[in-house]
């Protein structure tokens, strides 16, 4: 019985679409495809885009106002820029140092507070030693290096 069923199933292979349908469907489908995007077309598009980006970048570079290319050659302008940068760096350092100082101060005062609310005096002393940092050394070192660069 199974063999007969399988044999009958194989006979369905003779089913064919009507030639008219096949031809008209083929024509319609092939006409409906979007414009092909070939590899060569994509390559050309990429080249054009790269060119545009290069032109825009060059334009921005050449016509960007007072900081024209000659500025690169001027030691005065460079020095001014560097001086303003230096001030910014130092202001940041001051702010940072203040924060660090406050944090460390509160930590040390907490450590030194041994009035019964701390448990192990030995551990506290060890932490105290570890936190014996020279707070100002980092900032002064940076300032010294910057001064050296400016000179």
């Amino acid at each position, binding site marked *: *019985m*199974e063999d*007969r*069923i*399988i*044999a*009958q*199933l*194989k*006979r*369905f*292979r*003779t*089913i*064919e*679409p*009507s030639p008219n*349908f*096949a031809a008209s*469907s*083929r024509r*319609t*489908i*092939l006409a*409906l*495809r*979007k*414009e*092909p*995007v*070939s*590899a060569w077309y994509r390559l050309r598009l990429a080249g054009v885009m790269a060119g545009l980006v290069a032109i825009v970048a060059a334009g921005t570079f050449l016509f960007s106002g007072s900081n024209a290319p000659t500025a690169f050659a001027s030691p005065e302008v460079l020095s001014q820029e560097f001086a303003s940068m230096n001030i910014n760096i130092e202001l940041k350092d001051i702010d940072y140092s203040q924060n660090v100082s406050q944090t460390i101060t509160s930590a040390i005062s907490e450590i030194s507070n041994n009035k019964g609310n701390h448990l192990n005096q030995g551990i506290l002393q060890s932490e105290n030693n570890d936190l014996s940092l020279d707070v100002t050394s980092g900032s002064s070192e940076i300032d010294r290096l910057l001064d050296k660069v400016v000179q």
Partner: protein
Amino acid sequence: MEDERKLISKAREGEEEAFGQLYDKYMPAIYRFVFLKVGGHKAQAEDICHEVFLSAWQNIGSFKFQGHPFSSWLYRIAGNAVIDYYRTRKVNVDIESIPEEPAVEMASLAEKMDDRLDLENIRECLKRLEPNYQDVLIMKFVEELSNKEIAVALEKSEGAVRVIQHRAIKQLKKYVEENGRPNNRTIKEV
């Protein structure tokens, strides 16, 4: 396979003739698959088949050649199109209410048959099977695809395909027996 790969590559670049050749090669098989899946309804089979190839043509750029035949990809699109078809039909019309008109192809085929099992009975029984069972039987016995090709098309393992095939045949046999011997039935005339 190498020729097919070249055709696919050209079709991906938008070459109409290349896709036309793929269409000519695979359309009859996809049509048969869809035709049997929609219960021998010719107009629906044509509509779905058209949609399948249109979708394939518009999305061929997303096809990645992984050593499997192009047909596996088409069968997958066709399977989804049939599911969509039934989903839509459920909203608008009850599937059971679709008229059971025997298609011209079925009738002309049946007339040529002098076997004890008639084709229409088989087709009706096939239609009652689960979609997975139908897919495997059509691909295996009508289209004579290998288990590997079927597995790729249905995104299942070859082992699963073998199991489905076994169960599908068993189920189909049961339905045929329930319907009675084909010779006891009158073949619908067009």
